[in-house]
């Protein structure tokens, strides 16, 4: 079942990746990244069955990181929304080439 869980995590991970690739809404993109982190957590948990309790501890840290990122990330999104009145990344192309 560990392998299956890992494969599940892989699928969740690439679905998250897929979301980042195809969504233009910054919040949803970020949400997809959270999905990726969640997939990693699943991998940690699955692997902790294989090698020890430490993996579960790491999930803890990852969740904290996710929370921290959410705080800053959403703040940035709010900040940019103030400028563009939009969260569509297609609009954000002052910086290019």
């Amino acid at each position: 079942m560990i392998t299956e869980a890992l494969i599940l995590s892989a699928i969740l991970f690439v679905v998250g990746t897929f979301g980042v690739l195809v969504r233009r809404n910054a919040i949803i993109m970020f949400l997809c990244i959270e999905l990726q982190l969640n997939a990693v957590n699943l991998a940690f948990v699955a692997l902790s069955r294989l090698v020890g309790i430490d993996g579960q501890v790491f999930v803890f840290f990852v969740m904290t990181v996710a929370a921290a990122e959410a705080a800053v990330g959403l703040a940035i999104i709010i900040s940019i929304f103030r400028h563009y009145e939009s969260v569509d990344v297609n609009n954000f192309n002052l910086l290019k080439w």
Partner: protein
Amino acid sequence: MVDILFYVFAAVAIGSAFGVVLARTPVGSLLFMVSTLASVAATYVLLEAHFLAAIQIIVYAGAIMVLFLFVIMLLNLGHEYRRDLKAPLAMIPAFAVVGAMAGFIARVFRATDVGAGMMTEAGRGIDAALLEHGAVGAIAQPLFTDYIVHFEVTGILLLVAIVGALALAKRSV
């Protein structure tokens, strides 16, 4: 039984994950996300990580997702639907890439021998620890000994995040 449950939850998780990606509205995505998190939490339980499952629901689905929702509401993105998915044709290369990626990773996972079922030595160790310290204690024990430094750094991390969020999101100077 456990296996069947696992597959059910896995299916839900994957389906919800696709829902996150493909949902029409941000709120829809968010709800699918919660669903995914819940399903994953269920698999945590199946993997004997009960405490983490709880945390997953409480912290992740509960707190972080609410934060997202809050921001979506704040930015007034909840109602109107503006298609922000790429055109289907443009999605093909992206799909090909992630598909191949999944294939590669899965291939490695399938090729790696992890022993039968969950009855690895370490798994037994975890079970023992759970028995000895309880679900919380099993994690707390290493968390506050071996990983004390990590734990402290996590504190700093949160502080930084707060400072950063504060500095960025304040309305005026």
